[in-house]
């Protein structure tokens, strides 16, 4: 599946309209690097790397153990690579979305997801990236990747995802 970075969302706020419009825009074209993206300030090489499954920076998710907000050793190199990309492209902003599994209060899970996003942000900031360029937010349990009440699914949802300008 080809993956493309798309321009920043334009949210049209409509009054008294009769329907919701949702367009799922995963473009099929293989032309990754150019005009379709509009992602601000990323070099073409780094943009390509973000979409290249062989490149470490195409891995956007950091997974966490239950009740934990510590980045496991296996994700350190990945986080370092994203920090390096941020430093090489000083105009780019990042949003980190934290997630949780579905057990418990939605608002408390929103706060737990925030801690996961914060943990990744902190790691990147410690590597020399200015904190103002990274917004850590939480999706709590609201955008799960799977919905089974199994240990495997819960593990898949305990994560923080790194998004670049143009993806949010």
């Amino acid at each position, binding site marked *: 599946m080809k*993956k493309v*970075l*798309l321009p920043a*969302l*334009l*949210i*049209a*706020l*409509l*009054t*008294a*309209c*009769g*329907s*919701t*419009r*949702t*367009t*799922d*825009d*995963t473009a099929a074209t293989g032309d990754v690097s150019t005009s379709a993206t509009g992602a601000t300030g990323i070099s073409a090489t780094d943009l390509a790397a973000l*979409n290249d*499954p062989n490149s470490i920076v*195409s*891995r*956007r*998710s950091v997974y966490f153990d239950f009740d934990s907000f510590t980045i496991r050793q296996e994700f350190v190199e990945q986080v370092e690579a994203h920090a390096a990309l941020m430093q090489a492209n000083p105009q780019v902003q990042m*949003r980190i*979305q934290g997630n949780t599994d*579905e*057990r*418990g*209060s*939605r*608002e*408390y899970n*929103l*706060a*737990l997801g*925030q*801690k996961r996003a*914060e943990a990744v942000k902190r790691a990147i900031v410690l590597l020399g990236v200015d904190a103002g360029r990274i*917004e*850590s*937010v*939480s*999706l*709590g349990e*609201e*955008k*799960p*990747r799977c*919905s089974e*009440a199994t240990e495997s699914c819960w593990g*898949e949802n305990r994560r923080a*995802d790194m*998004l670049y300008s143009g*993806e*949010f």
Partner: protein
Amino acid sequence: MNMQPTLRFIAVCWLALTATFAQAQLAVEITGSSASQFPVSIPLLENEGQLNEGVTDIVRDDLERSGLFRIVDTGLQTFPVSETPDMLAMRALGADALLSGTVTPLGDGRHNIQIRLFDTIRHTELGALALAMSEGQHRLIGHMIADFIYEKLTGEPGYFATRIAYVATNGSRHELQVSDADGHNPQTALVSSEPIISPAWSPDGRKLAYVSFEQKKPVIYSHDLASGQRTQVSNHFGSNSAPSWAPDGQKLAIVLTRDGPSQIYVVNADGSGLKRLSNSRSIDTEPVWSPDGQSIYFTSDRGGSPQIYRMPASGGQAQRVTFDGTYNVTPRISADGKTLAYVTRHNGRFQVATMDLISGTSIVLTDEAGVESPSFAPNGRMILYASGGSGRSSLSAISADGRVRQTLSSQTAGQIREPAWGPLPRN
């Protein structure tokens, strides 16, 4: 598994309360009954047959659904409001109270509904009411009469003419809906392809605050139900969530992460005047005001596990309120300020519990899977909540003593969750 986020162009649309969607009402089912049920007779009103839609069946359904009343059948008799009924005969049929009433056309398309309520034991009239009913108002009038009877017989205000808000989700379609408390007449306030959580009624019932993820992060909006207009109340750096109205409707307590971990702040209803209230290095969230406006209850894990605390409404020293178990969240306070409802993890599952705030004793009310979001009826007698877990969530209401339970399920596919019970109607 590596996945880039799927990007969507989203148009979020909100509708004024007269929605154009065809949608199924929620179906209500009750189980259980109160320890003692008050037997009451609600016959048809004189001339009620002239109406297009009946009124007294709404009254009977409301009273029965509360679990506090048993409807006594007194046959096909009607009791005109101008006459005093034969109380001995009614008592002999088992009714301790009796409704009499007459419907009279007003000549302009409306009808005058006059009722009287009698105590058949003491042979006294408990009260009388006259209501002008316009076309299409039979449900509202029925609810108002049921509220009147409920209050006369229990001493507490009824909740039948109230509304509830909730989020109906089907796949990636999320709708914030408002319906009558019995599930009828659902109206859509907001449709979105991204989640909506934490709806909160303003004290005057005119607005709903909620959290929307349409901007790919949690943002708080305030939505005027009559006009469909909404304001973005809080979109600070980081996450914005858990809106809760002050009792005077002038301010909202909210949770922000702009300064680090989730902390509690207060803003004016339009989002201006941000002031930080809590000051811990842990998670502080789910603020709710006490009805007297003096305190704020909230969830915090400052003690190592999520528990409920209380602090002065101006901020300051917090005191811990829950001590049993390792997970107590989502505080809600009854209108009389005496009872705390919350979610507790009990035997590995999440349940609704209540605590008497004076004595500190608590009871677990539910025994189901995936319980969340308790919400008090405005008279404190019933608690609405969601249960079933992901994929199966529906709403239930349980009486404060745990004896009577109702389920409200959607007749269409999808889930219902995030319930919020609206305030008593204004007169």
